C-alpha cells in the first residue's frame, strides 16, 4: 500500500509496530472489504460519465473514457425537474429539522429537569413505542394526511416527522448528564426555566444537537417510501422519489440512471466526509436502545 507517512502522532506510533505477516494479512482483508463497500459508489459515479456505447462494453471500462462527459447529467436535468426535486428535498429537510429540533429540545428538557407526576412512567412508555415498526404506522398516517387534505403537499412530508422519540431520548441523556447544581444555581439567581434552557442547556448540548440534526437530515434526505406514498405530482417530489420516477419515466438507460443517482447521493457523501465523527457516534447509539 501507499507508503505516505502521516504527521499524525497516533499514526506515527503505529509505524513503530514491527512488520509481521499477520498485520499484512489484516490490511489485505480490510482493503478488500473497503473496496467492496465503496465499489457501488465508484461504479455509480463513474457510470454517470460513460457514454451509451461505453456503458455497454464488455469487458467494462474501469474508468470512463471521457471523464468530462456531462451529457447524462444534462439529460437528467432536462427530462426531469431534478432542480425542483432538490429544492423540495431541501424544504422538507429544513421543515423537519426545525420543527423536530424544537419539539425535541422542549420535551427532552421537560423529561430531564421539570418535575411532574408520572414522568418516568410516561418516558418509558414512549421508549417502548420506539420498537413499533414504522411500516405499521404508515397505514394510518397516509389516511390522516389524505383526510387533512395534505396529500401531495410539501407539509405531508413534514408533519408526521415533527417529533422523534429517539432524538428526545438522545438529548435527554445529555441533559441528564449536566449537573443539577447548575440548574439550582441558575434558579437561585432568578433565571427562569425558559431562559435556562435556551441560554445554558442548548449551547452546552451543541454536539448532541449536531448529532441529532445530522441523523435527522440523513433520514429525511434519503426517505423514499413516505414521499412516494404521501405525494404524487412532480412539483412536490423529493429527490429519491424523483429518482424512482425517473427510473420508470426516463427509460432504462443505465448511464443516465447513474447520473441521477449521483445527484441524490452526492450531498450526503459530502456531509459525511465533513461530519463523519458526529454521524458515526450517533449511529452507534441507534441500535442499542434503553
Amino acid at each position: 500500500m501507499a507508503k505516505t507517512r502521516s504527521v499524525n502522532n497516533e499514526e506515527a506510533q503505529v509505524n513503530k509496530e514491527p512488520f509481521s505477516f499477520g498485520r499484512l494479512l489484516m490490511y489485505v482483508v480490510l482493503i478488500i472489504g473497503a473496496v467492496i463497500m465503496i465499489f457501488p459508489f465508484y461504479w455509480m459515479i463513474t457510470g454517470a460519465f460513460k457514454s451509451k456505447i461505453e456503458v455497454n462494453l464488455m469487458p467494462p471500462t474501469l474508468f470512463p473514457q471521457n471523464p468530462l462527459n456531462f451529457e447524462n447529467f444534462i439529460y437528467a436535468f432536462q427530462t426531469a425537474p431534478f432542480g425542483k426535486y432538490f429544492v423540495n428535498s431541501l424544504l422538507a429537510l429544513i421543515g423537519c429539522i426545525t420543527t423536530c429540533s424544537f419539539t425535541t429540545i422542549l420535551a427532552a428538557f421537560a423529561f430531564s429537569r421539570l418535575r411532574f407526576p408520572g414522568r418516568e412512567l410516561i418516558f418509558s412508555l414512549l421508549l417502548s413505542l420506539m420498537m413499533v415498526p414504522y411500516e405499521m404506522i404508515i397505514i394510518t398516517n397516509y389516511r390522516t394526511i389524505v383526510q387533512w387534505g395534505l396529500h401531495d403537499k410539501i407539509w405531508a412530508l413534514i408533519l408526521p416527522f415533527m417529533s422523534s422519540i429517539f432524538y428526545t431520548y438522545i438529548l435527554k441523556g445529555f441533559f441528564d448528564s449536566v449537573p443539577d447544581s447548575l440548574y439550582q444555581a441558575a434558579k437561585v439567581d432568578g433565571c427562569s426555566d425558559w431562559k435556562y434552557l435556551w441560554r445554558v442547556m442548548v449551547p452546552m448540548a451543541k454536539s448532541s444537537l449536531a448529532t441529532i440534526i445530522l441523523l435527522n437530515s440523513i433520514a429525511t434526505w434519503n426517505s423514499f417510501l413516505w414521499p412516494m406514498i404521501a405525494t404524487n405530482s412532480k412539483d412536490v417530489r423529493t429527490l429519491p422519489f424523483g429518482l424512482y420516477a425517473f427510473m420508470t419515466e426516463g427509460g432504462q438507460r443505465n448511464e443516465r440512471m447513474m447520473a441521477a443517482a449521483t445527484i441524490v447521493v452526492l450531498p450526503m457523501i459530502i456531509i459525511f466526509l465533513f461530519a463523519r465523527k458526529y454521524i458515526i457516534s450517533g449511529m452507534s447509539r441507534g441500535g442499542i436502545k434503553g
Partner: protein
Amino acid sequence: MIKRPFFERIKPLLYLLPFIISVVIFTLYPIVNVIRMSFLEGYKYLTGAYTGVGLENYQKVFADPYFRQALGNTFKYVLCVVPISTAIAVVLANLLNQKIKFQAFFQTAYFLPMVTSSLAVGLAWRFMFNDKIGILNYILGLIGLEPVNWLGQSSGNFMAVVVFGIWSILPNTIILLLSGLQNIDPMYYTAAKVDGAKTLRIFFRITVPLLAPTIMLVIIINSINTFKMYHELFPLFSGPGVAYNLFTVVYYIYYEFRVLTPPKYGLASAAAVMLLITVFGFTMLQRAVQAWARRERGEDGKDKKRK
C-alpha cells in the same frame, strides 16, 4: 400569588405539548387504529362502516398465497442475511478495532452506505447485477463461474437481494460490534500477550467469548431489521421480484393498502399487527440479552456512570 403555582404546575405540560400532540397523532393513534382495523370485518374506509368484529382479516391473510409466500421469503431472507453479515462483521469490526493506519479512510469506506439513499445505491447495484453488461457477471466469468441471471429469474432475484441486503446491513452491524469491542477490558489482551498467545487464539478464546453478548444483540437487532425488508425490492425490481415471486411481509402490507385499488386496509392491518407481534417478541429477547450482558460484565451501576 395564586397564579404562579398553577403556572408552575402546568408548565411541564406546556413544554411537552408540541411533542406529545405530534406523538399522539402520528404514532400512538396509528398503532391503536391499525389494531382496531385489523379486527373489523367488511370495513369501508370512506364511510367508516363495518359489518362485524372478528378474526376474519387474519384468516384471510393466512389464506392469501401472497402472504404465505411473503412469510417464506422473509424467513429465508433473515436466515441468509443475518448469519453471513454477522460473521463478516465480527471479523471486520475486530480488525477495525486494532491500531491501524488510514483509520479515516477505512471508517469512510465502511460507514458510507449508512448515510446514502438505499434507493440510489440500489440502482447502482441493479446496474452491477445486469445480466449482460453487469460487472458482477463479468467478475464471475473471470473466476470461471457461470453467470447468474440476477434480475431476470426468480432464483437469481433472491440471490441478488441477499447480496445487496448483506452489503447494506454491514455498516450498522460493524458499528454495533465496535462499540461492544470497546467495552472489553484491555487487561485481557495484555495478559494474553504476556502469555505469548497467538493472534487467532486471542480472537477465538478472548474476543469472541467476551463479545458474545454483543453478538447476540446484533443478531437480534439485525433479525428485526431484515424481517422488515422491502426497501431493497424497489430499486432492484421496481416491485416484488420479476414474477411477483419476492413478496416479503412488509411489502405485502404496502401492497395491500397502497398498490391495490381499492385498498384492503383490513388485510394490511392484520399483517401489520402480526409484524408488530413478531418484532415485539424479538425485542423482548433483546431486553433479556441486554440484562444478561450487563450481568456478565458484572458492573450494572458502574457502567451507567461511565457514560
